């Protein structure tokens, strides 16, 4: 064999292992073993580690699925049992596809029709702030979009690596993504006791520390926060923008969960809108890229693999390179691109499909908000656990006290204590929680991530099993 471990690209070897993967494998294994007769103290594994609403039992949006079906099988344009607005939209979308088929290639930055729809949606959402199709790039999901930008930033073969200021906690696939792009993760801590807010003092501290190890070029932030559930108010967004402007950092803003804001008195404000409502010294200069995706509530179409990014105040030369890189990156599936159109331009009042559509999204929003409240109160009441209330997003991020026994055992097994906790919870109770995503210099606190975009009954079962494990099992702490 000519290729061996030694010859593998060092960048690939350097991609840190995800805390998610080993337990994911175990969960899959247990799930397969149960129907084969393995005896477990539980009937099935409940996976609340990551957001996958359809897997969790939440239904796809009828309008979306009907339109896509007609696009895939155009003879359904004549099918009278399908609402007229469904068929008209499908017809419009098919006309936007070459050869009238979802099987054709599209331009690497996406179908012009869809880019235009997205631009119009952004203008409606941001109450008149202009948006242009040429600044919208369609990508095969959030990770691909981020990867394109991070690779652009990565610079050449200089001695100091590019750095990206990254929140702690952050989405669990972000560190590996930065590793793959050969970019340094420069952490800034979100303030847990202020419901995970981003604080300017901490941003400054993090930047100063980062400059000793790398060349920081960008700051990443998610709003609503993943996994924290924090939703920034205008003041907070302005603080981050001013910081990025002063330090000449590119703002990478993950706004994928923008439709999942439920905190009382909270609403989603886009970074772009806030930026344009600030002074012209900011609105004309701050470089911003914002991301959205189908893998979000209420549409929940993770498997269709599509998202977009909007580039604000980005140099045309850079935009040209974004396009070049998209040519060699994963092309966004056409069905995904069409679903984006449906996400940003859903049925309106008066449309035949509107009633069903609005019922469906109201239901999803209600489930999310009720689950968030129920789970947060329950977890916060458990001894040795505390949980900040979430205002949006699809996760809760409780902190837990892990017993000294588990900490010791974890040291021996070379696992992080919370990862051992999760493993034991999975093995003993069949509940699969997501990893805490604390990279960087944090003191020893342990967190886990719970996806609350699940059916209420599922959540109840999870809370019951978790409480039993946490309070009465070997994990219980003094």
């Amino acid at each position, binding site marked *: 064999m000519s290729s061996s471990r030694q010859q593998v690209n060092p960048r690939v070897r350097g991609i840190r292992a995800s805390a998610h993967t080993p337990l994911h494998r175990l969960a899959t294994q247990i799930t397969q073993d149960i129907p084969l007769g393995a005896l477990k103290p539980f009937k099935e594994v409940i996976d609340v580690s990551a957001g996958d609403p359809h897997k969790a039992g939440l239904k796809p949006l009828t309008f979306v699925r009907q339109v896509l*079906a007609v696009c895939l099988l155009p003879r359904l344009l004549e099918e009278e049992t399908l609402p007229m607005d469904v068929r008209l939209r499908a017809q419009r979308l098919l006309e936007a596809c070459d050869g009238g088929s979802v099987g054709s290639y599209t331009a690497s930055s996406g179908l012009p029709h869809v880019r235009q729809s997205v631009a119009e949606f952004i203008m409606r959402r941001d109450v008149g702030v202009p948006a242009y199709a040429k600044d919208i790039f369609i990508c095969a999901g959030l990770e691909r979009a981020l990867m394109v930008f991070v690779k652009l930033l990565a610079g050449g073969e200089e001695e100091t690596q590019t750095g990206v200021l990254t929140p702690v906690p952050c989405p669990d696939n972000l560190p590996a993504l930065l590793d793959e792009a050969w970019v340094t993760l420069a952490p800034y801590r979100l303030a847990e006791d202020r419901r995970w807010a981003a604080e300017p003092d901490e941003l400054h501290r993090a930047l100063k520390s980062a400059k000793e190890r790398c060349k920081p070029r960008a700051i990443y932030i998610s709003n609503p926060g993943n996994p924290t559930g924090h939703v920034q108010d205008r003041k907070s967004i302005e603080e981050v923008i001013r910081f990025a402007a002063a330090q000449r950092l590119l703002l990478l803003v993950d706004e994928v969960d923008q439709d999942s804001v439920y905190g009382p008195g909270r609403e989603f404000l886009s970074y772009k809108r806030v930026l344009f409502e600030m002074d012209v010294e900011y609105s004309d200069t701050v470089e911003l890229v914002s991301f959205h995706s189908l893998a979000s509530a209420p549409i929940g179409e993770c498997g269709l693999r599509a998202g977009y990014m909007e580039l604000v105040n980005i140099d045309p030369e850079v935009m040209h390179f974004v396009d070049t890189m998209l040519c060699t990156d994963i092309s966004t599936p*056409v069905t995904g691109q069409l679903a984006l159109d449906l996400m940003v331009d859903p049925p309106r009042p008066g449309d035949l499909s509107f009633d069903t559509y609005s019922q469906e999204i109201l239901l999803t929003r209600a489930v999310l908000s009720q689950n968030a409240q129920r789970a947060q109160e329950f977890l916060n009441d458990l001894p040795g656990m505390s949980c900040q209330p979430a205002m949006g997003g699809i996760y809760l991020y409780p902190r837990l006290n892990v017993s000294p026994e588990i900490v010791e055992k974890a040291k021996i097994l070379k696992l992080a204590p919370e990862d051992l906790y999760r493993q034991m919870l999975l093995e003993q109770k069949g509940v699969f929680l997501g990893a805490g995503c604390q990279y960087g210099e944090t003191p020893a606190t342990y967190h886990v991530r719970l996806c609350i975009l699940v059916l209420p009954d599922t959540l109840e079962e999870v809370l019951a099993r978790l409480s039993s494990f946490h309070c009465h099992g070997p994990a219980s702490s003094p």
Partner: protein
Amino acid sequence: MSAIQEISPNVRNMKQLQYTVLAKQASRIKGELRQRVTKPFKDLIEVYSGDAHRGGVKPLTFVQQVLAACVYPPLAHSDKLPVDVRQRAELLLKGCDGGSVGSYTATGGIPQIVHRISEFITRRDGGAPSHPENIYISPGSQWGLLNLLTVLVDAEASPRTGVLTPRPCYLTSNLSMVGLGAVPVPYDLCEEQGWELRVEELRAALESAKGVCKPVALYVINPGNPTGHVQSRKSMQEVIRFVSEKRLFLLADEVYQDLVHGEQREFVSYKRVLMEMGPPLSDTVELASFHSASKGFMGECGLRGGYMELVNLDPAVMKYIHTMCSTNSCAPVLGQVALDLLAMPPQAGDPSHPLYREETQRIRTTLVRNVRRAFEVVNSLPGLCCQPVEGGAFAFPRLHLPPKAIRRAEETGMQPDMFYCTRLLEEAGVFVSPGCEYEPKEGTYHFRFCIMLPEEVMEELLRRLTSFHTQFMKDFS
């Protein structure tokens, strides 16, 4: 412009595709046609890419029906669709979490689909076993190739990593290699012998790499893109012996395996040839082969379904490939479904089989006819000639341009074949892809066009080409 001061040299080196220039021109012409500006043609014939549906080839009914039923399951329960369509959709939805194509899947692909792909490969290769653990589904075949190259290529190494690639070669793969920091090392295909691959050229390429880079892999496209050449078994055995001798990883891009037109040739996979050569080669040569739902009769480019099969890899290296595939989430579910239909189409006795057979037969006969007509017409024109197109989706004629045309091209700052293509587009409304995009041998000019078209469209294309070319040669004589 501040934060992005230095774009990575690897990205900078990815040159702009000539295609984008032509695409802008085509866009302008389409706009003019819509405004009813008078032109010698009423529409554009767009044949620059291997996109069958764009060209007018109809999607396969069975494929459309299964996809629609997967997306909107009430269809799978109604009797509007044939029984076998409904059954397949139900089977596939069972493999999806929550019974929805909107859920994430295992990163290497839905297990039942991966299994059926491995069974397909085994049947295709006359029984040579194929293991599901060695198969990864990806969003299009090129992505699998890119992930694999990311593992093999060390951008920081000195000397740099090299990959032997054919000349001429399908464009995007070279671009991706450069983007990764690898050095493409071209080996010439022999145009006069139908674009044959000769081992002497492989040796010459390796020689040329000395002191420049360290080649780790050999990339082969069979059937060829853009050349249309289908390799003989003998040639493939020579390639296998060569990679074994030189300890190179063999990357076999076989996405056009369903499109073989010549009666002389049939497609045989590199895996099959390798297995038939027996140990020690069959146990040691490292091979990755790629296939896709984008080409062939399905032509479902937009769905993004491809797979790679890995043979004889070091388990430690497989681990990293798995890492790479895991960091990317899964391939789009509908693309995976398309692969399932590729691996297991309707069989004789199934209700959908007669229509499926009729549709694929029609495409097949159309292609055979198109290939024959293109060959006849192109070779009859002075200054144009074309090797036989044995397989694949394209014809790649050679242009023998008069010196006056070459000079004019140079004056406008364009490659001569690009100049020809811009004129062809402007004056005849035919959008082809210029040979310079394929890194050909210096001083040779070509253009590539897709042959997956309805017959009438091919005739119209050839008519326009003849008329344009004759005039062009006259203008520049």
